[in-house]
């Protein structure tokens, strides 16, 4: 929507440009809000107009460092100031902001204009490259995850050793990283040791390091992973694969906080926090004599269990949306979502490979999809409808004609309201969040109902 003094020509330009553009009057109230601004913030122009800009953007610079304030105070433009805003669903969006004052021909101050560029894709790529994920990447709305979230800050703060249990691909490493990032050690190193990939013969030298001359090729001292993680956190993935002879040495690290590099005569102190993860039942391995019980009890001071994806199906729509955003950034595509049929298939499938398998399914869809929605034909063969063996728990949900009727009703109301989420939710008598959740579930995009 545009102020009255904007010509159709200017309106067309503002509508077509990819950056968000809005104007404010002298009281910081929004007077125009272009289509890209709607897309980036999740607010419709009519919802934003008349509001103070801080009520729409909720940015980290609103309190200290407001670009518009700087422009008002100095009369000078601000160019590409980095900021983080919150969109209408509470997701952080990195942006770069530029501002300038607006004046009448006689010099009277009218307000200011701000343009902002969505840097989500860039940040996503940077995180992919640097493998820097945070607890914000843990997608879990299910009860099991809410229980973990409830104690996560206390667990992180405690400095206790943590054992994370869960099947492969369920996000154990993300949780370990979250514990580190929320702890007092967050500015110190975070070192990952994948016990399943290190040869048993190299384990001790990798873990504890060695002194020059400790063995034939030891030309100089080499610090081990524990020394590298000093004052930080060391994460043992697949701890069940730890060789028996190393188990006793790790036990000593946990008990005495001491170890000796290979060939060293002096004992070293270790100031590291240990987080371990396993996809196998350590108690069973203990019972079989394959894992030391004393080490198990030292590791399992705090136990966190991540259930498999098939036991928290409610997280699937959120995960699908998360992966679509991620792959849009990674592959420079603009896919809006999945069709209702695809969502139904994804909700029914049992995911032996857990979240990682769902991620792979979406990535496969991205390879084949040329349109806006991932359709059934874009799914891997084993997910094509004839091959799916529905789990007994979910047959009723998947086959329900009520679900189709609900999806149709949502589409009808969105069509009638031109894709306006607020009005559609009101019309349907449900909250905006519920509407959004149902739209995600059925693969419905509001953009498809918004006219030019």
């Amino acid at each position: 929507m545009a102020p009255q003094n904007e010509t159709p020509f200017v309106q067309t330009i503002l509508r077509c440009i990819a950056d968000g553009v809005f104007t404010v009057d002298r009281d910081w109230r929004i007077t125009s809000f272009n289509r890209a601004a709607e897309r980036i913030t999740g607010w419709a122009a009519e919802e934003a107009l008349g509001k103070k800009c801080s009520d729409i953007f909720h940015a980290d610079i609103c309190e200290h460092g407001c670009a518009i304030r700087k422009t008002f105070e100095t009369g000078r433009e601000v160019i590409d100031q980095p900021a983080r805003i919150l969109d209408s669903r509470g997701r952080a969006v990195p942006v770069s902001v530029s501002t300038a004052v607006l004046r009448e021909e006689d010099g009277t101050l009218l307000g200011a204009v701000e343009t902002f560029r969505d840097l989500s894709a860039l940040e996503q790529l940077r995180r992919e490259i640097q493998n820097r994920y945070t607890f914000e990447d843990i997608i879990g709305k299910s009860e099991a995850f809410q229980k973990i979230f409830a104690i996560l800050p206390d667990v992180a703060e405690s400095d206790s050793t943590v054992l994370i249990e869960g099947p492969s691909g369920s996000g154990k490493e993300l949780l370990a990283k979250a514990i580190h990032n929320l702890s007092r050690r967050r500015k110190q190193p975070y070192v990952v040791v994948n016990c399943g990939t290190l040869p048993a013969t190299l384990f001790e030298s990798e873990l504890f390091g060695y002194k020059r001359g400790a063995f034939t090729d030891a030309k100089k001292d080499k610090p081990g992973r524990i020394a590298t993680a000093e004052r930080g956190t060391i994460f043992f993935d697949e701890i069940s694969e730890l060789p028996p002879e190393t188990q006793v040495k790790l036990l000593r690290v946990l008990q005495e906080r001491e170890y000796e590099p290979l060939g060293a005569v002096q004992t070293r102190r270790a100031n590291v926090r240990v987080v371990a993860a396993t996809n196998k039942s350590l108690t069973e391995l203990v019972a079989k004599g394959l894992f030391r019980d004393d080490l198990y009890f030292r590791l399992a001071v705090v136990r966190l269990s991540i259930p498999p994806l098939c036991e928290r199906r409610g997280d699937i729509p959120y995960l699908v949306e998360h992966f679509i955003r991620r792959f849009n950034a990674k592959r420079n595509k603009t896919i809006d979502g999945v069709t209702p049929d695809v969502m139904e298939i994804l909700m029914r499938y049992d995911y032996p490979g857990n979240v990682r398998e769902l991620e792979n399914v979406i990535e496969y869809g991205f390879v084949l999809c040329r349109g806006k929605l991932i359709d059934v034909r874009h799914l891997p063969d084993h997910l094509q409808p004839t091959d799916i063996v529905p789990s007994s728990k979910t047959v009723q949900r998947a086959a329900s004609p009520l679900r189709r009727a609900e999806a149709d009703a949502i589409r009808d109301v969105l069509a009638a309201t031109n894709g306006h989420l607020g009005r559609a939710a009101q019309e349907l008598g449900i909250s905006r969040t519920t509407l959004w959740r149902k739209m995600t579930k059925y693969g419905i995009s509001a953009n498809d109902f918004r006219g030019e």
Partner: protein
Amino acid sequence: MKVAIPRLGEVVAPCLEYSATMAIFTVENGKIVDQLDFPLRSREPLDRIRLLRDQQVDTIICGGVQDVFEDLLRARGIQLISWVSGNIENLLDLFLHGRLVASDGRGQPTPDGRSHQKRRGKQK
């Protein structure tokens, strides 16, 4: 009961995570009996959660809040009345009279000083 409000002067700060001051009010028998302002230098979520935990806060009235942070707080049993704006005294008055309650689902923002109802916060 304790109520926390991230503040910017006399109004609710635009964002819980980025606010520089947290005002914590102690309420007894429906009246405010104490108020403490805590300056917040760190933007780490854990530091804010630690403060809210240590101060035994029951309810937060705030502006914007990131979804993951909101999940963390709700999972700890803290009631959130989020996405509200406006004058803190007015909001507290509404809250103490049971006219500002947490609502399900994010609604729409409203202008300052009108209804204070935003996405999560709801004026009865």
